[in-house]
């Protein structure tokens, strides 16, 4: 991991989310749970597209993952998803792509841990 890598979880994003939705931890909790539930589906879709050498199919789940991760403050996963999306758009499924997908899976594990930690801290 390089020093310039974005953080696994940007706490400021979650704080801002909490503030801008009326300081309602219940809502943020619900949103985080939604994110925790749908992200593995997108990672699976990305892996399946790479396994099938199908660049075009990779773009949409990578795009959605980039966007939803940014919303939740999962900045490292968002950045990796962005790279995956761009690779998918370029149409070239190179060897580096598998590595990128593995990095995303690893980042996801760290993200999920950090989010669970946040949830426990903000438990009702």
């Amino acid at each position, binding site marked *: 991991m390089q020093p310039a890598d974005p953080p696994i979880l940007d706490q400021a994003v979650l704080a801002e989310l909490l503030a801008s939705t009326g300081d309602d931890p219940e809502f943020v909790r619900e949103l985080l749970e939604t994110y925790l539930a749908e992200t593995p589906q997108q990672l699976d879709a990305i892996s399946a597209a790479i396994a099938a050498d199908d660049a075009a199919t990779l773009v949409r789940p990578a795009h959605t993952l980039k*966007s939803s991760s*940014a919303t939740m403050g999962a900045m490292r996963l968002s950045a990796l998803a962005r790279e995956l999306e761009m690779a998918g758009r370029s149409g070239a499924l190179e060897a580096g792509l598998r590595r990128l997908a593995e990095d995303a899976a690893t980042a996801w594990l760290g993200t999920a841990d950090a989010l669970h930690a946040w949830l426990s801290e903000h438990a009702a």
Partner: protein
Amino acid sequence: MSAQGRALVVDDSNVNRRLLVRRLESLGLTVEEAENGRLALDRLESGNGIDVVLLDVMMPELDGYETLAAMKADERLRHIPVLIVSGVEEQDSVVRCIELGATDYLTKPINPSILAARINASLAAKRLHDLEQESYERQAALNRTIQRQKEELSRFLSPQVAALVSSNEGEQLLAGHRREITVAFCDLRGFTSFAEKADPEELMTLLNEYHRMMGEAIMAHEGTLEHFAGDGVMVFFNDPLPQDNHVERAVRMALQMRDRFAELADEWRHRGYELGFGVGIAVGYATLGRIGFEGRHDYGAIGNVTILASRLSSQARAGQILLAHRVIALLDGRAELESVGQLTLKGLSQPVDAWNVLAMPAAEVAELVPDGA
């Protein structure tokens, strides 16, 4: 700041969709959700009520471009404002969406204040459109009603009366007024026995031909048809529109009717029916206006003049056009007449002098009679 309206959020990411729904709800909107463009179109096509659509670009099934294009191609959906929700790196797709007809765009992560401003602008535009549409539809419905009423009126009333009813002075005239008019009463000799013998189809055929012929003559001379009653037809002149030569118009109309009827009578003679046409014409003051009861009114004339014309008509033999004394005076020698002497008419205490019209030279007043009859 509170906004009234119903929004549809279209995004395949549950996280982004839920967050946007929450933000819109906190602005006061009622919010519905769709996971992709296909579901959004289904919702929009199922009926309206959506005031603004927030549309993600990249979605499965039907993406933002396709959804937008389909909305703009649909007469019922094209006026609904669409806000494109895009990432900061997607400026190209925003431009494409604006070109496709999107109202505006929002960049993720969504800034709540910008969201509120865009939503309010979109809802204001939608409300304005709805008001315009409502007003347009109300006006169109009103125009249709007026047009239908005019058509109905001209079917039941003579064209003059129909025009009068829809004019400004109409109400005043309908309320009742007094005026000198010329009245022509026409009916058929032999009609009662014909009606007894003929089968219903023959009877209706004859009446249709007869009424069509009468109608043409009435129109040509701009008479006001008061009523058709079986073979009886009452027409008056000089009301509701004043006519300088109303006496002459009535006589010329009767002559045209008599000539045309002669052809019809020939035809029916071949079928074994003897029918004759008689007319009575009188001139005098009558009270005119709306006669009848709520729901069924006629524009009618009441006065001795109508009674006199009617009685003369009953006395006329086949082919006669009987004129009352004052009609002769007003014709001023323009018609060729024969005296039929004094007639005793039902309901009138004194016998009256009457004349039959033989002919009337056409030249002087050719412009009166468009078809030259």
